[in-house]
């Protein structure tokens, strides 16, 4: 039974990783950009929630109402003011900008919030649990996984069923021809970045509720998100969920053998996938959605 419990906890942890990975996957799918500051943006969102809690006395979950639009707006601004200017100059300049942003965000957080660990307390739900058959699961990890599934479902419907989602897929296929259809890819990219940072803001706040974090927690988040995306298959949204779950289970199972092995086991599984199936488990026929 202990093993079942380990695997279930891993699946739930995978929900959080999927939430981190979704925005990364979306941005890569739409504009072929790896946002190296993705993890730092999630931590920035967690700190914004800390401020909202301190200043307005909000519950961290309620703070999402403020933090998510703020981060989405920041994503829009980032794309319009910086990344869109680098289009057509190859992949490297934009990646370097996100690398620089990662460093800037970390140092700004260090200056503002010191190097102390911070946490978010939603008032009870983080420790409440429910007994399901043979295992006990926490309400909050369950909520996290459910949120990840809902976000992916909404994104899937958006990309698969709406005119704007169609424009995302067309632009991802062939930007020049999409422009001939009247699609302004700069606006579309700004929207994608807004969505991406809005989603990772949720991930950052959930992370802050689950565990403590510091200004330097971002790069680890980026690494796990990146691994989840690669395991699942680049650009496949549901693959991202499965990738997150596989990574989560690998980490909890590894930690079961020895507490220090959790993260390592996750990396090893990631490496194994890279070696045996480099296109990921769900290499999509279409690149987004």
């Amino acid at each position, binding site marked *: 039974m202990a093993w079942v419990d380990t695997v279930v906890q891993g699946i739930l942890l995978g929900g959080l990783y999927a939430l981190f990975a979704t925005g990364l996957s979306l941005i890569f799918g739409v504009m072929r950009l790896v946002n190296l500051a993705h993890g730092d943006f999630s931590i920035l969102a967690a700190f914004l929630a800390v401020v909202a809690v301190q200043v307005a006395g909000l519950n961290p979950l309620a703070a999402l109402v403020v933090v998510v639009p703020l981060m989405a707006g920041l994503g829009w601004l980032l794309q319009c003011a910086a990344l869109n200017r680098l289009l057509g100059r190859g992949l490297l300049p934009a990646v370097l900008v996100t690398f620089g942003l990662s460093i800037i965000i970390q140092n700004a957080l260090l200056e503002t919030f010191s190097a102390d660990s911070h946490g978010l307390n939603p008032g009870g739900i983080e420790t409440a649990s429910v007994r399901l058959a043979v295992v006990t699961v926490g309400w909050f990890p369950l909520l996290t996984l459910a949120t990840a599934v809902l976000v992916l479902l909404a994104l899937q419907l958006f990309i698969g069923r709406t005119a704007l989602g169609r424009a995302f897929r*067309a632009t991802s296929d*062939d930007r020049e021809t*999409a422009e001939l*259809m*009247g699609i302004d890819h700069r606006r579309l990219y700004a929207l994608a970045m807004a969505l991406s940072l809005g989603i990772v803001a949720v991930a950052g706040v959930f992370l802050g509720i689950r565990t403590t974090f510091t200004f330097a927690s971002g790069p680890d988040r980026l690494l796990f998100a990146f691994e989840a995306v690669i395991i699942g298959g680049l650009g496949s949204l549901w693959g991202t969920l499965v990738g997150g779950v596989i990574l989560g289970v690998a980490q909890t199972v590894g930690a079961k053998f020895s507490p220090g092995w959790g993260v390592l086991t996750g990396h090893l599984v990631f490496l194994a996938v890279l070696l045996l199936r480099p296109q990921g488990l769900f290499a999509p026929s279409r*690149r987004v959605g």
Partner: protein
Amino acid sequence: MTLLAVRDLDAFYGDFQALFAVSLDVVEGELLAVIGANGAGKTTFLRAIAGVLPVAQQAVRFRGRAVGGRPAYELAAAGIALVPEGRRIFPSLSVEENLLIGAYRERPGSWTVARVYELFPSLAARRRQPGTNLSGGEQQMLAIGRGLMANPILLLVDEISLGLAPLVVRQLYEVLRVVTAEGTTTLVVEQDLSQVLQVAQRVYCFRKGTVSLTGRPRELGRAEIAAAYFGV
């Protein structure tokens, strides 16, 4: 009335100049053909007036407005639709979605998915399949249908005949004749003269990036066209 007026248009790929002072008028309601050998600058010309290539603002006037160098998405919204060389069907989109994306700017007009299916019944049967699963001829139909879905004022079609059987090419030109007769001004670029000279009302011949001949196909002699085309 002149719909599109091109004056002294130069176009470049980097340091390479592909068009030299090209002037051309498209009259409202006509089916105009630009012919020329490979490398004459025909595709470059279409890409320049569709906004894909940067050109001087005054070189292109559409409905009296100087639009040279405006981005392609803006010109698409203004009513210029380009059916690009090689079809460029979106592989991630189904046949029907490829049509719907043509209407992205929601320009008013009579073209709908249903009407395109009427025009090309074989597309209707395969509406749910990925657009790139179709045969070459059907993909060309889809590309034309996608262009029509924009309800364009000016439809630009690049090299319809590329890689297609003569019978299919004849059908497609017949469709373009009907489309033009119904009010959409059409400019086609073509290398293969067998079909296009039968349907075009006026023709421009390009050679080495300049206009070498212009007139009505019926009034131009074969030798005259051959000379302008090949430069002999």
